[in-house]
């Protein structure tokens, strides 16, 4: 019987293990040095904020693993010996494998800033990072101010976490508007406002020069490229993540920034695979990046690889792109592709609507010539995944999206609806005469 060993118990590795178990009786071992049981990484912030206890972030009760015969090993893999097909753990034990899957995720980026390894300087990715933050910034008496470096999703989450304990936060963002490498200008501007509403000291177009230590080797201030010195007790490094693959350096497995894999998620070494944040496609699939460090893609790779490992070889062929996030109080969902001004192609045109007073807006991307619908970003309005997935598959045009927008609304009952205003703006912007159709259950469920 095949022994499949998975390094990493995050969403990719665990999804893979669950699906292998559904399909087969193979022996499955998951190794992790981070935690005994699978937890939801995206939920770590809520533990610090007091919304949940750590055990609430664990999607399966502890008996689940034994019942499904998934062996869990708490250990750190130091070496992969591909010739003899075995792993060497830090404590010296060896684990043989028939098939090996690397699902070790990411680690925070560090760009060689002076002082980046001082005490009080940390990223936010792992359970250990959470514990460290708990120690570094338990309250605003021990942490008088925190400086966060890097304006992305983790940065704004970390700011929200610290603000929940009333710790003053300075947020250094390289770009001239928050996350505008990804978000179109109007959306990015709205998030800037919302960050300021939460009393976060947002400093745009500002880079970290160095971190200054006190006499105990703890961070006591940062110096920015604008020459300003900001006193602080904690520095959060949130300028993106990078695959966590140092232990594979001399293994003979081909590495780029991540573990190089083909569309079957196979590495160059037979019987070794990689999935999730740490896997790097030779070429990005469609408009996707070669490394996709996203919860959903990790899960999807796990679903696909399980088939391959159970003798039904399948390529990793993700469907239409989607993602979501929450910026403080504003929920964000995206379906299909909406690129920022910085990265969009010439044929991509945008329709943008923003509520006059509330923090609600949407952006719809479409092809300038064919008017084909390309994607949608929505802030503060929930929308149905299935519907957009269907419209993208059917290559609908933007007029269709506007006409049937009510079908897509997923806000809770009795919420105020904005389709009327959105379509009116669309009509005015593009000289159209569309009237939105009433919501129809029949259309909504025709896809099911």
């Amino acid at each position, binding site marked *: 019987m095949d022994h499949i060993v998975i390094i990493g118990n995050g*969403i990719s590795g665990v999804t893979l293990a669950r*699906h292998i178990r559904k399909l087969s009786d193979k022996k499955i071992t998951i190794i992790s040095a981070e935690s005994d049981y699978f937890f*939801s990484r*995206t*939920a770590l912030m*809520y533990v610090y*904020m*007091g*919304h*949940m*206890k*750590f055990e*609430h*972030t664990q*999607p399966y*009760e502890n008996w689940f693993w034994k019942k499904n015969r998934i062996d869990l090993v708490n250990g750190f893999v130091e070496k992969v010996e591909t010739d003899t097909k075995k792993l060497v753990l830090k404590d010296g034990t060896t684990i043989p494998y028939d098939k090996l899957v690397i699902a070790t995720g990411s680690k925070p980026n560090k760009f060689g800033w002076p002082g980046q390894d001082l005490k009080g300087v940390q990223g936010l990715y792992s359970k250990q990072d959470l*514990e460290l933050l*708990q*120690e570094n910034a*338990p*309250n*605003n*008496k021990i942490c008088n101010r925190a400086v966060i470096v890097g304006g992305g999703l983790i940065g704004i989450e970390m700011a929200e976490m610290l603000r*929940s*304990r*009333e710790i003053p936060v300075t947020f250094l963002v390289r770009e001239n508007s928050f996350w505008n490498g990804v978000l179109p200008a109007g959306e990015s501007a709205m998030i800037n406002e919302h960050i300021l*509403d*939460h009393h976060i000291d947002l400093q745009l177009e500002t880079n970290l020069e160095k971190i200054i230590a006190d006499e105990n080797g703890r961070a006591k201030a940062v110096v920015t490229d604008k020459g300003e010195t900001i006193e602080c007790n904690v520095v959060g490094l949130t300028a993106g993540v990078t695959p966590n693959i140092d232990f594979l350096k001399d293994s003979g497995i081909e590495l780029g920034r991540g573990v190089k894999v083909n569309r079957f998620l196979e590495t160059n070494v037979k019987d070794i695979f990689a999935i999730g944040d740490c896997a790097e496609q030779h070429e990005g699939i469609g408009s996707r990046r070669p490394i996709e460090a996203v919860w*959903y893609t990790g*899960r*999807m790779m796990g679903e*696909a690889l399980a*088939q391959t490992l159970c003798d039904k070889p*399948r*390529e990793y*062929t*993700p*469907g239409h792109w*989607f993602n*979501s*996030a929450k910026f*403080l*109080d504003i*929920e964000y*969902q995206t379906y299909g592709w909406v690129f920022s001004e910085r990265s969009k192609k010439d044929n991509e045109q945008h329709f943008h609507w923003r509520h006059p007073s509330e923090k609600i807006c949407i952006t719809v991307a479409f092809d300038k010539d064919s008017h084909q619908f390309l994607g949608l970003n929505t802030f503060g309005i*929930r*929308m*149905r*995944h*299935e519907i957009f*997935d269907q419209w993208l*598959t059917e290559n609908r045009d933007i007029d269709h999206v506007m006409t049937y927008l009510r079908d897509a609304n*997923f*806000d*809770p*009952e*009795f*919420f105020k609806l904005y389709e009327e205003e959105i379509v009116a703006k669309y009509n005015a912007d593009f000289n159209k005469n569309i009237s939105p159709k009433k919501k129809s259950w029949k259309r909504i*469920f025709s896809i*099911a």
Partner: protein
Amino acid sequence: MGNFDRSMSLAGEPPKALNTGQKLAVLTGMTGMGILILQLFNLNLGNTALWLSVAILAIFTGIIWFSQAAYAHKQKGIKNDGIWFKSMSSRGVLAWMAGIALTGFYIVLYFYPHYLGLVKDGDNTGLIALFDPLSKGLSGNPASQWFVYGTMYTVAILAFGVKFIWKYRHNKYEQLRTVSVMFFQTAFAFFIPEIMARLNGDLPYYDLKNMWPLNYYNFERYRINGFIDSGSVGMTMLFFGIISIFVISPFLTYKYGKRWYCSWVCGCGGLAETAGDSFRQLSDKSKFAWKVERWVVHSVVVFVTLMTTAVIYSYLGNDTSKYWLTKTVFISGVAFILTAVFAWVMIYKREELAKDAKYGAIGYFTIIVVLIGMHFFSDSGNIFIFKAETLRSTYSFLIGSIFSGVIGTGFYPILGNRVWCRFGCPMAAVLGFQQRMFSKFRITTNGGQCISCGNCSTYCEMGIDVRAYAQKGENIVRSSCVGCGICSAVCPRGVLKLENGPEKGRINSNDVLLGNDVDLMDLVNNK
């Protein structure tokens, strides 16, 4: 977690102290409570109407001021910061103190009301006397312990209702259903019965929204006599009591799920959703708890059905010439209805029942066998050696008092705010059965957007592991769901939506989630 806790105690604690406004608000509210407590010692404060008004006003002001100080200066959005750090909401010392105080209050209320100042033949004293002016103003009668309780209950739902609305000021669904429970409590549970008592003294006290089997005593002899003796008004109320369980509630549950009752109308639900909101995260989400829940709550349904049948049976006659509804007609009717329901479920809803069918069958056959036994071996509604009256008083003591009051509400700060609704309420079980089998209601999961964070499960007051469904892309169709909508509210990724839609496709399950290879999804899901 060991590591995490240790560092927390080493490095100091997160902020959880009250701000100045909240401290003053607590002082105000506690002053009001203090007046009531002093009154227990039978101090003669003089003008009772004035002191009662001051006490209630102070409690009301305190709670609303507290909410204002907690939420008004913050951006609208989810307000769960520090829930698991605060003693009161994380089973700390304060929670245990509150739990013990509440439990004690319920024990005195149910079993020793004379300590509250209830005097059978004569003027009330103490706390109950303080409420006399209000009671006389409404119904014309002196206050009872139930009037004191009802008043405080209403004050709690109204004041904490305002708090809840403030907390969820970004969420119209939460606001509307809270206004609804505030209205039903104030009008239907508090004012209307009191005023009806003034207009027609013979009419039994009747909270019209409180239907059998939650209102387990509705068809007892003295009430039936009361209804009949009060002429057409009474008969209308009796008729309403019967159609509310057999017609109105099935219809509304079919259209909207059991939430129309449990979190829009019901008084127990009303208190749980308002005063109990701070404790919703304490419910047990384990699979074991779910198992216990199913056994216990359905046993209560069997118990209440048998008890009510036995009680009605015991006072019916045998002579068809006197009244058409005889013992035989009645018991055959009950057996017929039960058989019809059971047969219908088995024939049409077999697949949806799956494992639960077994439990349903056990419950059904227990009742039928006992009914037959009752009819042939006893004439007075005895069940085995128990008299109908013994059953009634046992139910009233165990379920009506101990379970719903002492444990159900007294243990809010320890077991969560819906312990009664989840483990004990036969009404919730009956509506839940229907919600599972025959309703348009479901919580839709939005494609593949779930990130398994666990907020939904944590804040589910009914202990449903919502995430277990959401992360599989499955809709949530659970009999216990009361449709409070909090899972949807706290979801950071907009994954959950309560809605009433077509029955087809309501219960779904996907092995591979939306967003992956379409062929793979088809392959796996159509296996």
